[in-house]
């Protein structure tokens, strides 16, 4: 008999919130690696791969939010505690590795492989201290099934459909947004996340299943990062055991903006130019979370502004990576810290 982890609605909400947190957690480290690759660089192939993964992580975060909205609760993302304090373990995991913010590097790719590690065949849900993200999603899926049986689907899927993010608003990257209204669509959404990335089942295949959306199939996230590690693409017929045998590409670990690992605003004196610039990045990042919060709370009109901020953040992050820290070796980078300044100037009335 399998252990049932999620047995109440409260526990379901809690775990869905964790899923949102986990999906978000991967984004800043991936973005730092991506932005540290110069536009005109020999690492173009790697940049493309990382970008495709980040885009899908954003999709996954949105799918997790759709799942939450479907069961009638709202993801909480614009709170100080939502933002990880890198270096940090994957939230709520079994803590077997630590993730940092830093430039594109061999070590970073190794960590990314750990984040996206496929789950063991036949592994079921593990809700408290999951080893792979897939285990968390399995637990959620099993919990949904259990609760639907226990309470009836209507008691579980109580959310307001108008809060779902649809393909009207969501675009870019592989995969497709799923509107979640029932157990079936919830399974679809979870499947989507698992097939593209985390929770992919080990040994099955290396490909995601985006062909179902009329898009090209790509290797699942783990295997995409493996391509970088090996400097070679997978091609049809390759298996996890065979490794990639497709086109080779160049990976140059030195052709990057050497961003300081885990930068913090507090590295620089209050009022200094660099600190001010980093703070302004964090201000915008916090604003982005605030806008996403609103978008996930039924204000879809905030999407446009949220997407606009995402673009700005990229330009600002790259600018930070042009500025020497002063240690003679590294450059400044974005720290993705919560901005209390934004909080104070915009949010007091709403909390």
């Amino acid at each position, binding site marked *: 008999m399998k252990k049932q982890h999620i047995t109440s609605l409260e526990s379901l909400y809690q775990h869905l919130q964790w899923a949102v947190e986990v999906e978000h957690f991967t984004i800043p480290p991936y973005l730092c690696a991506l932005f540290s690759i110069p536009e005109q660089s020999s690492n173009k192939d790697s940049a493309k791969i990382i970008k495709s993964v980040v885009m899908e992580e954003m999709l996954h975060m949105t799918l997790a939010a759709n799942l939450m909205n479907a069961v009638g609760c709202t993801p909480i993302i614009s709170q100080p505690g939502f933002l990880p304090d890198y270096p940090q373990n994957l939230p709520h995991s079994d803590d077997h590795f630590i993730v940092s913010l830093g430039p594109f590097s061999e070590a970073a790719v190794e960590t990314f492989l750990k984040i996206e590690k496929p789950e063991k065949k036949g592994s079921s849900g593990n809700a408290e201290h999951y080893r792979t993200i897939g285990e968390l999603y399995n637990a959620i899926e099993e919990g949904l099934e259990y609760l639907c049986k226990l309470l009836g689907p209507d008691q579980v899927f109580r959310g307001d459909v108008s809060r779902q993010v649809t393909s009207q608003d969501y675009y870019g990257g592989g995969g497709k947004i799923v509107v979640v209204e029932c157990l079936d669509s919830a399974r679809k959404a979870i499947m989507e996340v698992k097939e593209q990335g985390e929770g992919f089942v080990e040994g099955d295949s290396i490909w995601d299943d985006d062909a179902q959306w009329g898009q090209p199939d790509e290797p699942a996230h783990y295997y995409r990062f493996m391509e970088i590690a090996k400097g070679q693409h997978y091609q049809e017929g390759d298996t996890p055991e065979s490794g990639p045998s497709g086109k080779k590409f160049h990976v140059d670990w030195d052709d990057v903006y050497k961003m300081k690992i885990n930068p913090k605003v507090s590295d620089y004196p209050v009022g200094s130019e660099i600190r001010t610039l980093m703070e302004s990045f964090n201000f915008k990042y916090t604003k982005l979370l605030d806008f996403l919060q609103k978008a996930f709370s039924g204000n879809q009109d905030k999407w446009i*502004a949220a*997407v606009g901020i995402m673009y700005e953040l990229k330009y600002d992050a790259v*600018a930070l990576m*042009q500025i020497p820290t002063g240690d003679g070796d590294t450059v400044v980078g974005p720290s993705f810290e919560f901005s209390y300044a934004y909080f104070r100037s915009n949010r007091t009335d709403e909390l």
Partner: protein
Amino acid sequence: MTDPVKLDLFLELSAFITGFERVELLGTGLALPYLEVVEKNIAPSLFVETLHKFDDARNDHPENIGQIMQRQFLAHPTYGPLLRTIIKLWYLGQWDALPESWQERFGNSTPVSGIISSSSYLEGLVWKAIDAHPMGGKQPGFGTWSSAPEEK
């Protein structure tokens, strides 16, 4: 290797005449390339002299530096054309040829002109100054143009 003091002074001067912060200039990633462009185009001695004069002026008369820049630098027949060209370099990413007579006296024999590189175009300060993005790059994202300019 570029002399860090020279780079530093170049940045200070550039910040002053462009109206942008030093870190904003550094953030373009073009401080070094631009320093090279200036050095390729004009006699080294004149450039060093300009930097030092500027350094002296701001140290000696910090309270009055604006007026001094206007009268003793931008209105100066030798420094003026150079500084205006440097402003345009930062704003437009492009080296405008200096007047011929000036170039003959103070310039190098094989000046570089035109847009320096793709990134110099994309990082032109003019776009930041007008609260926009370079046409054809650094796109702001779908629908962002609907919002009122100030509330961005």
